[in-house]
């Protein structure tokens, strides 16, 4: 006489008699246990262990996830002697792994949605906007962390502004060799940045205005700005010398000279007359760079001061300060990442596109020094190879933290950061050979 019994019933019986162990159970032939939809039983662990011999011999086709879990649990006890106390007692010969079946699961993860959005800022003005630029650049607008396109497609890829100066300056050898022929002429320098190095923008640093350097008068600096505007048709960043006493006057004159071009004026900061700079930028139709040194609260404070002065939100970019790889990059990274997360969480004081002075990377001695000053170090190799990679990695790292715009210098570094951020952004142009690579073949690659 045949009698049918379900797995749930077995479980009940076993539980009733507090059986935790089955000895001398032999099951012959092919047994098929079928767990019907809804019939999945969540077995208590002791019972699951007791059942292991049955299940191990069985071929289970299941349709419910509980059943999978149950099976998995039982299998685990079987296959890992010592995993649970009850298992050792059961003394079941290990099932050959080959008889296992893949436990099919789906990978799922939720999107992260934020309340905040980064301000969208356009730099540069074309003829129709009252300027003379051939194109403009727009940054910001994010609703997610950088390149988290699966949460929210990043609206604009980061942009690169290549530095030029209003006088020859001392540069690391690896950088200098690219600019030697244009150092005397800011216009030519800017042209080279665009023509040869593919710059989206050009930054003209008016460092000769520093009283400690040449003390170039503001009026003369303004002429340099006009020259650069003539030389290139990309949007411009105009930087002072960083001297807090002289910069207001210099940037005022520069803003006037660049009337209507919607340049980024760099920069306003707390230890200077930022009001003058902000006003000049407003009067002549420019965007202002709000710069603080690695301090979230200072950044909020300065931004609020700018709001009070009536600077519209779409006219502000922030620079929370860049430190070089190995020389404070950890501070800069975390500072930017925290600002960006706060902004996405809804802190409107910080919800602005971020500019990073990546050229600072050359401050790291590893970027320019010939050999290590430390005798015990392994060989440092040629500095000309090291330096650009310091610039690249400083830039990319801060891009992942939240940077939208990078001021850079070495052409190779600028090119590489541009290319990798385009890829991460998901630009169509970034489609290429890489897709055809059979990646698992790296193991046998020669």
């Amino acid at each position: 006489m045949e009698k049918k019994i379900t797995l749930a019933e077995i479980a009940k019986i076993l539980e009733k008699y507090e059986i935790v162990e089955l000895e001398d159970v032999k099951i012959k032939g092919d047994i098929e246990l079928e767990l019907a939809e809804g019939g999945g039983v969540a077995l208590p662990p002791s019972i699951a262990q007791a059942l292991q011999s049955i299940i191990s011999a069985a071929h289970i086709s299941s349709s419910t996830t509980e059943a999978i879990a149950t099976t998995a649990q039982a299998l685990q006890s079987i296959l890992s002697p010592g995993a649970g106390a009850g298992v050792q007692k059961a003394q079941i010969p290990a099932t050959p792994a080959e008889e296992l079946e893949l436990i099919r699961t789906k990978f799922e993860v939720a999107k992260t949605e934020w309340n905040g959005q980064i301000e969208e800022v356009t730099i540069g003005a074309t003829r129709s906007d009252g300027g003379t630029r051939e194109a403009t650049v727009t940054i910001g607008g994010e609703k997610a962390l950088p390149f988290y396109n699966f949460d929210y497609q990043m609206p604009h890829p980061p942009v690169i502004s290549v530095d030029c100066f209003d006088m020859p300056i001392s540069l690391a050898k690896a950088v200098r060799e690219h600019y030697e022929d244009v150092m005397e002429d800011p216009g030519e320098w800017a042209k080279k940045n665009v023509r040869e190095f593919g710059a989206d923008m050009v930054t003209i640093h008016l460092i000769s205005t520093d009283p400690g350097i040449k003390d170039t008068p503001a009026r003369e600096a303004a002429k340099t700005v006009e020259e650069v505007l003539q030389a290139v048709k990309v949007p411009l960043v105009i930087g002072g010398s960083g001297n807090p006493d002289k910069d207001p006057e210099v940037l005022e004159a520069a803003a006037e000279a660049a009337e209507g071009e919607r340049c980024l004026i760099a920069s306003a900061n707390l230890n200077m007359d930022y009001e003058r700079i902000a006003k000049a930028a407003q009067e002549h139709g420019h965007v202002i760079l709000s710069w603080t040194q690695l301090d979230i609260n200072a950044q909020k404070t300065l931004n609020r001061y700018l709001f009070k002065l009536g600077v519209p939100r779409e006219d502000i970019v922030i620079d929370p300060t860049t430190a070089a790889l190995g020389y404070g990059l950890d501070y800069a990274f975390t500072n930017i990442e925290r600002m960006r997360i706060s902004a996405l969480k809804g802190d409107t004081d910080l919800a602005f596109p971020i500019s990073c002075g990546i050229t600072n990377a050359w401050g790291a001695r590893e970027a320019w020094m010939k050999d290590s000053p430390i005798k015990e170090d392994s060989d440092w190799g040629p500095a000309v190879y090291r330096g650009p990679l310091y610039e690249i990695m400083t830039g990319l790292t801060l891009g992942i933290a939240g940077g939208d715009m990078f001021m850079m210098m070495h052409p190779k570094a600028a090119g590489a950061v541009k290319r990798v951020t385009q890829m991460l952004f998901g630009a169509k142009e970034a489609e290429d050979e890489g897709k055809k690579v059979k990646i698992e073949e790296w193991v046998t690659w020669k």
Partner: protein
Amino acid sequence: MKLNSPMEVWKYLPGTNCKECGEKTCLAFASLLLERKKKLEECPPLFEPKYAEKGKKLAELLAPEVREVEIGIGERARKIGGEDVMHRHERTFFNRTALAFDVWDTMKEEELRERVRRITDWKKFYVGEFLKVDAIAVRSVSGDANTFARCVKRVAEETDFPLVLCSFDARVIEEGLKEVSDRNPLIYAADKENWKEFLGIAKRYKVPVALFSPDLDMLNSLAVTFSSAGIEDIVLDPGTYPEGQGLEQTFSRFIKIRRAGIVEGNKGIAYPLIAVPMTAWMVHGTENALEASYWEAIIADLFIIKYADIMILHSIEPHSLIPERTLVANIYTDPRRPVSVEPGLREIGNPTEKSPLFVTTNFALTYYTVESDIASNKIDSYLMVVDSEGIGVESAVAGGQLNAESFKDALESFNVADKVKHKTMVIPGLAARLSGETEDVTGWTVLVGPRDSGRIPGWMEKNWPPETVS
């Protein structure tokens, strides 16, 4: 980890303050547990029957969100994974990305030994310690099990580094593994075809195993299958596409997996991740070695930050190795760690009363850089470490922690005049603007040194000893 404050941890401890753990109070022990500086086992009472229940619960609550897996044995063993947060500022990242460099079984013996030695011996001084790399990945290029085994054996003879054995052929892996089964290597990799064999091997040899699949459903399935079979030392490889949209998607896969593990508590996928930046070489080729090494470093950069716990690299040239390893150090420093050293007067080498007196700050990065620059160039001297509240030279000058008064305080409290008779000090170039005032306030002669302490030897040749000393 589900607990956030020492008080929360304390609730699960016996609370008797018996001091067996070596701490004065249970609360002190609790805060060290939270910091992962002490282990549960160090509180013996917790394992007595009456506390066992609490102990078990505590172990569960303290377990990191991402499983921690150990590779290798002994001093050089490396823990990977074990992370609890998505962003370093939320607490800290715990186990820095292990950098593994490849060798392959078709290398000539001498070439192989030389490469292994270079990887093993590589070091770079940084903030008071020598940075090193972490592991060696042995690739089976030949596809021949015996060739692979021979190569693994040679590598093992040459280095005590943890090993990663790489082949998708289980037979090859097993032959290699036989040579180093006592060294707890990571075997790479099980995929949707070969996983049963790999599962068997991982089980028999009790070694950690990598699972490979760019399809995350499959990767998750493999992980669940392995863990159901009792294998928990798992490392996941979601595939590293080196370029274009493949790279974009790789980036997103790493983040999604980590998010599922940490934010959503999906234990089935909460394992350490492996990235393979060396796939860059498959695009650029050895004929463009510089380009390839740059792109390899770029990919490494992405995944050092976004969640690779171990990665496999090909270039061992210093220009890529130095920044890669430095980035690991930067991302994985504890953002809460005090970064200062004790102020005081240090002797470097065997200084006499005529030796130079250098002055610097007590910011660890500054101090160790300066100290090692002087020491490794064998300049007998004194180094006066001023209390700048742990701030570096330039920031401290700007922020006011370093000024004429702080120099004066240091000279007095360390009794420097007893040791240095020439009353001359060398200050950092970046503190030049303090020189005049410091002379006025201290009565010492101030010499302005170079801006970078690496240039002290050259500076010495021209400027030391000055007239004031001889």
